[in-house]
């Protein structure tokens, strides 16, 4: 028998009524008499399902509808249309049994009490979520180890750096060991080291508890490190749902081949001949320190690689997909035009 999905959205829609006016006093006065109202679909009929234990990247440019979707999944927003089910609950009813099993972390907002140490906020959450004392103790210990919270827990939250606060924020959100975790930009504003630590932590949490994680991030490093599967939305519509690798395959028709040649081959007199030779297979996009990078059509990759290896004095050759940022950029650009 197939497991029921942990999260399921069917034709999910959310539209907002926005009033708008031009700038200036005249327009301000005019808007007193008649307001121009417009219905804007923030989420426009998207469907997907997450299996228990899956960790999925939720991608899209600013304003694509990611946060709106997360808010509908966590129960903060009532959908305008379609259906949504999380752990077999209807989120917007916000039943206690539901709320005890989920969490929403918003990287730009804080649930911790500003003026007191995070440890005190943790105690408050323990009481609110009715976490048994022994579980609480071991969970805090575990989170403290994983996130290296030690000394941070005793300082007032307002004295923590952004990264330190974010770690405490994550810990506070996971004390009740939610089975479904919604993360909205969990690494925003963090330095590279801290980002890596938070990513590692999310991966471990997912593995240890088999929790389902849906994560939005502008950091492709987050997505590549954590998510095999991604869902891409744009203008409230679903563009792609599948493996990250397939996204790259679908939206890029090229691969890059970097060729390192024996000393001197790529420079000087010979260079022109080499470049002319490589140019017949694809576009030379860079040429530095003896390495020539070539962009070739995907399906040609194998053949071209073979020819280059046979014809040139190659020291090293690598075939790569274009960077994921570039792929995503291309996805959105293609959609907008």
């Amino acid at each position, binding site marked *: 028998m197939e497991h029921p999905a942990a999260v399921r959205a069917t034709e999910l829609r959310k539209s*907002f009524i926005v009033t708008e006016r031009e700038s200036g006093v005249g327009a301000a006065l005019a808007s007193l008499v008649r307001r121009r109202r417009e219905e804007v679909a923030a989420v426009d009929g998207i469907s997907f399902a997450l299996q228990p234990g899956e960790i999925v990247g939720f991608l899209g440019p600013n304003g694509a509808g990611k946060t*709106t979707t997360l*808010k509908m999944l*966590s*129960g*903060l*927003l*009532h959908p305008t249309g379609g259906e949504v089910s999380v752990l077999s609950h209807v989120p*917007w009813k*916000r039943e*206690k049994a539901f*709320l*005890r099993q*989920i*969490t*929403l972390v*918003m990287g730009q*907002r804080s*649930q911790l*009490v500003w*003026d*007191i*140490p995070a440890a*005190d*906020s943790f*105690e*408050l959450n*323990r*009481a*609110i*979520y*009715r976490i048994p004392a022994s579980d609480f103790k071991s969970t805090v210990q575990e989170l403290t180890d994983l996130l290296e919270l030690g000394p941070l827990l005793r300082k*007032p939250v307002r004295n923590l750096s952004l990264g330190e606060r974010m770690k405490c924020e994550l810990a506070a959100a996971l004390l009740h060991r939610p089975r479904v975790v919604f993360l909205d930009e969990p690494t925003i504003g963090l330095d590279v080291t801290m980002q890596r630590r938070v990513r590692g932590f999310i991966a471990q949490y997912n593995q240890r508890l088999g929790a389902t994680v849906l994560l939005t991030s502008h950091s492709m490093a987050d997505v590549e490190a954590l998510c095999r599967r991604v869902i891409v939305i744009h203008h409230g519509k679903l563009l792609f749902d599948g493996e990250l690798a397939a996204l790259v395959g679908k939206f890029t028709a090229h691969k890059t081949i970097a060729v390192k040649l024996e000393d001197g081959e790529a420079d000087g007199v010979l260079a022109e001949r080499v470049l002319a030779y490589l140019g017949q297979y694809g576009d030379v996009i860079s040429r530095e320190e003896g390495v020539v990078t070539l962009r070739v059509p995907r399906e040609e990759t194998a053949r071209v690689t073979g020819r280059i290896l046979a014809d040139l004095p190659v020291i090293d050759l690598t075939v790569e997909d274009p960077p994921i940022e570039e792929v995503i950029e291309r996805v959105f650009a293609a959609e907008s035009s």
Partner: protein
Amino acid sequence: MGLGDVYRQQFRTTLASFIQYRASIFIWTIDRILEPLIYLVVWSAVARATGGSVGGFDTAQFAAYFIVLMLVTQVTYTWVMFEYEYKIRHGSLSFALLRPIHPIHTDLVDNVSSKLITLPLMLAAAAVLVVLFRPVFSPPPWAAALFVPALLLAFGVKFAVEWTLSLSAFWTTRVGAINQGYFVAALFLSGQMAPLSLLPHPLQVAAAILPFRWMISFPVELLLGRLSPGQAMTGLAAQAAWLALALLLLRTVWRAGVRVYAAVGA
């Protein structure tokens, strides 16, 4: 475990937060001491100028009225009306909504905690004022006994009404105007500026029909021994009725407000 545990933890949290704001808390408390003190000085002067008493209050009785008023105000005040606009506009209510507990519990404990912290200062101020102004009041024992439930009900009514009003922030950005209107009405009709019996008759009626008298004035009148047993019982019944009505409204308005919040977002 359960709600008691939440209350205990919330109390500790609030206490810890308040300690960070000792100076502000001190200033706000001084504020609540000064306001009745100013009215007391003014009314005493008026009483002396008009031959010793105004509307059945001489200077010692005014002193008793405003000192008791100060303590009742201390027990019944809330600040939820200033908070909700911020919480709703800035989306911090979202976190509260995602917790498996009604946000009103936090507000209630917050409120009670702050009062426990400032109570010693208030009592000290009251003692000083008693020495300075020599109030006279001798409530019958039954009235003194009923004062306690009347005071708690007064707090209940005020908290429920103001919590409900603060939810107007779900619908409008002009919460400030609503608050202002409410506070002006409360200033006159709850007996903060003058004993209600000194007001024109229509205003007295309005104060009794609206919840205002039952939020502050009624327990004061009771402790000053100005009510008959019959009036006291009617008053307690009015408080209970207002509390029930306010809680009912609170529930309805909260649900409707959260629906709007869920529709519009923040």
